[in-house]
């Protein structure tokens, strides 16, 4: 019989229950979908890395004999080593089309490390000029297996036939360098070439320029770094790094870390909100039904039976919310996985139904709701039957602290005074409303602000710092003056500046990091350093300017002396003063005057890249001309990169609005449920006001004033909370490759405030409907 009462009670306030269950469903859906995706991602990644033998360490050298791997394998701790030829070449395309760089990676039969996984077609035999490309590259450039790709190698066109497609654990995230934040198959792809073909074609027969090695069990990268460096230094080593710093590996690790963080935090907000609202509802219900409880007790129901009955509501909500959320979450994980697969090439990465998470989700939901339920209805026990059947003591009016602010209090009319006192009447509830609204506001702010931050990063990096249009990376150092002059002679080039990039090991005390120091000319216009205040910084004559992320990583203060050891020349260590730290969001940047940097490596007049500013209309022709240059390695079109980045953000936009929508639902659920509860408690008061001659609008206004007051407080509290959430997001995703600025645009606050106002108004509007249904007569007949 009590079950029937339960179902009828639920039907009686269906709206409130639906709102509550929706919040639970959202929380669990987020949790289950993220956890499922995460599990699947980690599992497929680990399998992939293991099965295809991703190396533990990597090194780049200028060139060396293929036999040097034997020397490496002799080092204690190193298990296997492979040498490869890795070279970026351009695809020969008609003028006007996007510049495409293809990274040729040589392979040998039965290679012990960094194997690729054949997807389609067949592995090239090594007799013809055949290559394998990644599936993303094939699809993105509309190639078919069997097509020929014209590549520009050493200034000549060389055609390769695509014999099939393959993925490699080394290029799960297929980007050319740390400045490229997202894969774009039209601009960059990876191809695998038999060593026997790559050697002659690339003029590197019997030689390699890229090393990968694995470690014996229990051996750390640092254990072998020194010895490996000693072997490789004589072949012009430019970098040596562990797998965790490998670009694709590190991007994927970051992503997993971020997803892990989100899976743990954001669902909890929803679950906590739902639990709080449930607590308020049940507590109110027990208060309202104390008469019934008294009767039940008088009949001889035990405390436990009655508690059981009230916990039934929590159980009902917990099970429905849990199952609903888990099921929707499982479905959503398919969408997440598809989204990830656009950017990450991991074979066997699929969403799957997991009974465990269905169970975990439902249990989590039950845990939260039963706990809230218990807190809400435990006072049943304290009631004795006779007392329970008597009405509760009337609410005592009290003056509030606001009244001490005399001038403010004096301005309010009596209706407003009543509203203010009501806010303070139930502090716990007011607190929960503020918390809930603040959370949902902060969620709106932070999900919008993560976009603000990224757009700010784009504007800063591509607008303020990088002022050039094209960066040409050269295959070999050339004379700076000649390089600049030759570039200026190309039709359409408006300006050219040199840029010298030198890989070094930078150490501060025992902390060290392999980075690239960028040498820039004094008063250069095409690549500028910008201070936190947005001011242009002049490079000092000597000494370094470093990015704040690098300063943080190596604990460097401006004015301190650090040691740099170039990977080039005689590798002599030099002491350099760090003059200034500048904000920078991409990479671990370090900058120096180009003359000073050149002197350091005994290449006083060299440059490794040329920055160009180009007339927009001449862009295609300039690129075409550059492609034909013999020494041209990579042609980097900044504007396309910027565009691509913006497109990427655009594609994530939907996620932003979905999150804002969830936040909206949550906010609405809290405000609506609490309003319903307040209304039921105050039916009598509100009816009296209507009898006195107040219109429904005036009565609603009193409630609106209360909600508005709480809403305002919540929004103000939500501002620091929003910053906190954004900080957590930014911090969770920060890495050596990029770190997002903390940036919230005023318009995001505006939109989020409007969002909060919208759910307050929506909830209020539903309440107004209820006020219209209040019966003055019914209510006033009853005793208090």
């Amino acid at each position, binding site marked *: 019989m009590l079950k029937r009462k339960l179902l009828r009670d639920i039907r009686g306030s269906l709206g409130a229950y639906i709102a509550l269950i929706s919040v639970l469903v959202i929380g669990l859906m987020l949790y289950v979908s993220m956890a499922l995706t995460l599990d699947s991602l980690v599992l497929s990644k680990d399998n992939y890395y293991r099965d295809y033998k991703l190396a533990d360490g990597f090194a780049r050298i200028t060139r060396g004999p293929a036999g040097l791997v034997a020397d490496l394998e002799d080092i204690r701790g190193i298990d296997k080593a492979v040498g490869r030829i890795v070279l970026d070449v351009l695809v020969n395309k008609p003028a006007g089309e996007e510049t495409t760089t293809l990274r040729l990676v040589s392979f040998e039969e039965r290679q012990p490390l960094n194997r690729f996984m054949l997807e389609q077609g067949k592995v090239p035999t090594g007799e013809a000029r055949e290559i394998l490309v990644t599936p993303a590259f094939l699809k993105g450039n509309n190639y078919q297996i069997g097509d020929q790709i014209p590549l520009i190698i050493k200034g000549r066109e060389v055609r390769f036939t695509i014999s099939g497609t393959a993925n490699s654990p080394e290029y799960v995230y297929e980007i050319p360098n740390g400045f490229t934040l997202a894969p774009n198959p039209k601009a960059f792809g990876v191809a695998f070439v038999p060593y026997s073909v790559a050697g002659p074609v690339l003029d590197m027969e019997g030689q390699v320029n890229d090393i990968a090695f694995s470690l014996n069990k229990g051996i750390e990268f640092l254990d072998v770094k020194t010895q490996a460096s000693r072997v490789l230094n004589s072949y012009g080593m430019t970098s040596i790094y562990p797998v965790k710093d490998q670009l694709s590996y590190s991007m994927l690790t970051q992503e997993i870390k971020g997803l892990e963080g989100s899976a743990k935090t954001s669902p909890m907000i929803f679950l906590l909100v739902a639990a709080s609202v449930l607590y308020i509802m049940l507590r109110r219900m027990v208060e309202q039904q104390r008469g019934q409880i008294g009767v039940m007790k008088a009949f001889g129901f035990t405390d436990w039976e009655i508690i059981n009955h009230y916990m039934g509501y929590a159980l009902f909500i917990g099970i429905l919310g849990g199952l609903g959320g888990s099921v929707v979450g499982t479905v959503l994980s398919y969408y997440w996985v598809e989204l990830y697969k656009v950017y990450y090439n991991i074979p066997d990465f699929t969403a799957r139904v997991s009974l465990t998470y269905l169970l975990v989700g439902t249990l989590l939901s039950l845990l939260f709701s039963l706990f809230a339920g218990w807190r809400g209805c435990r006072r049943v026990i304290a009631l004795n039957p006779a007392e329970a059947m008597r009405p509760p003591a*009337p*609410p*005592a*009016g*009290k003056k509030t602290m606001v009244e001490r602010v005399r001038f403010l209090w004096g301005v309010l*009319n*009596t*209706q407003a*005074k*009543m509203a203010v*006192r*009501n806010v303070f*009447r139930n502090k716990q509830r007011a607190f929960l409303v503020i918390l809930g609204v603040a959370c949902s506001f902060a969620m709106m702010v932070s999900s919008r602000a993560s976009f603000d931050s990224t757009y700010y990063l784009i504007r800063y990096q591509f607008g303020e710092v990088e002022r050039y249009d094209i960066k040409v990376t050269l295959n070999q150092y050339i004379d700076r003056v000649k390089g600049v002059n030759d570039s200026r002679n190309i039709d359409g080039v408006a300006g050219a500046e040199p840029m010298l990039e030198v890989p070094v090991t930078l150490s501060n005390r025992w902390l060290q990091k392999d980075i690239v120091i960028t040498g820039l000319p004094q008063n250069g216009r095409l690549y500028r350093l910008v201070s936190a205040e947005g001011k242009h910084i002049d490079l000092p004559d000597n000494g370094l300017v470093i990015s704040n992320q690098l300063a943080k990583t190596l604990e460097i203060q401006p004015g301190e002396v650090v040691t740099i050891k170039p990977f080039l020349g005689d590798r002599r260590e030099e002491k350099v003063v760090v003059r200034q730290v500048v904000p920078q969001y991409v990479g671990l940047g370090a900058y120096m005057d180009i003359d000073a940097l050149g002197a350091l490596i005994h290449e006083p007049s060299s440059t490794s890249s040329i920055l160009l500013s180009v007339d927009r209309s001449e862009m295609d022709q300039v690129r075409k001309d550059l492609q034909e240059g013999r020494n041209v390695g990579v042609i980097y079109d900044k504007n396309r990169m910027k565009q691509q980045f913006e497109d990427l953000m655009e594609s994530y936009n939907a996620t932003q609005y979905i999150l804002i929508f969830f936040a909206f639902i949550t906010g609405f659920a809290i405000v609506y449920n609490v309003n319903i509860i307040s209304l039921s408690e105050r039916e*009598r*008061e509100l009816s*009296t*006001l*209507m*009898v*006195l*001659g*107040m*219109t429904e609008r*005036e009565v609603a206004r009193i409630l609106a004033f209360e909600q508005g007051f709480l809403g305002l407080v919540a929004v103000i509290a939500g501002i620091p909370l929003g910053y906190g959430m954004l900080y957590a997001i930014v911090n969770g995703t920060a890495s050596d490759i990029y770190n997002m600025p903390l940036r919230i645009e005023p318009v995001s606050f505006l939109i989020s405030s409007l969002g909060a106002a919208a759910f307050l108004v929506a909830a209020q509007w539903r309440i107004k409907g209820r006020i219209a249904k209040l019966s*003055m*007569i019914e209510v*006033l*007949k009853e*005793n*208090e």
Partner: protein
Amino acid sequence: METIIRTQNLRKTFYTGEIPVHALKGVDLEIGEGEFVVILGPSGSGKSTLLNILGGMDAPTEGEIFYRGKPLQNMNKKELTMFRRNAVGFIFQFYNLMPNLTALENVTLAAEITNDPLEPRKVLAEMGLAEREDHFPSQLSGGEQQRVAIARAITKNPDILLCDEPTGALDYETGKQVLDALRNFNRDLGKTVLVITHNAAIGNMGDKVVYIKDGRVDRIKINPNPVSASEVSW
């Protein structure tokens, strides 16, 4: 004497479930301006229903009711609200004060929504509550609360005061104080007061006593010499 309220064949039927309940079965009544009218009847006689309809809180199922010649049954929600707001003052058995407003604030709340209110503080003082104006309802006795409720009704300066068992929840002495306050309002300001009660002794105070029985006016007694509250006893 001008007629302030007149009803004609007033009927009210409630439907609780399937069974119709005829609360009023054709009430004809005329109340004059400035009269002190007592409506007497046992519980369930329909007197509260009559009061609710007279106060514009409920609509009759059939029949007509005129306030100063204007038919209430034709008024829309908004007009009825304005009628309650400016013409009527209500006093309930259970006071129905706003628990989180002080005595003075409760009275002021009513004054704020009315066109031509009396000064709340003065009205409250006349009720003998000048000392208690900063107290909340929970800090006041039942009699004090009911006097605040009367002050709240009076401050609106209504043409007619409707009182539903105003002494029902009060002890003897306090009940008499409250009746005294109602009588004073009637006499001093010449306003109409309508009291419904099942307490026959109160009938002696009325200029006119209307006996309600089973949803009909049983009889009407005109009292040429109504007694004061102090002379009433029960």
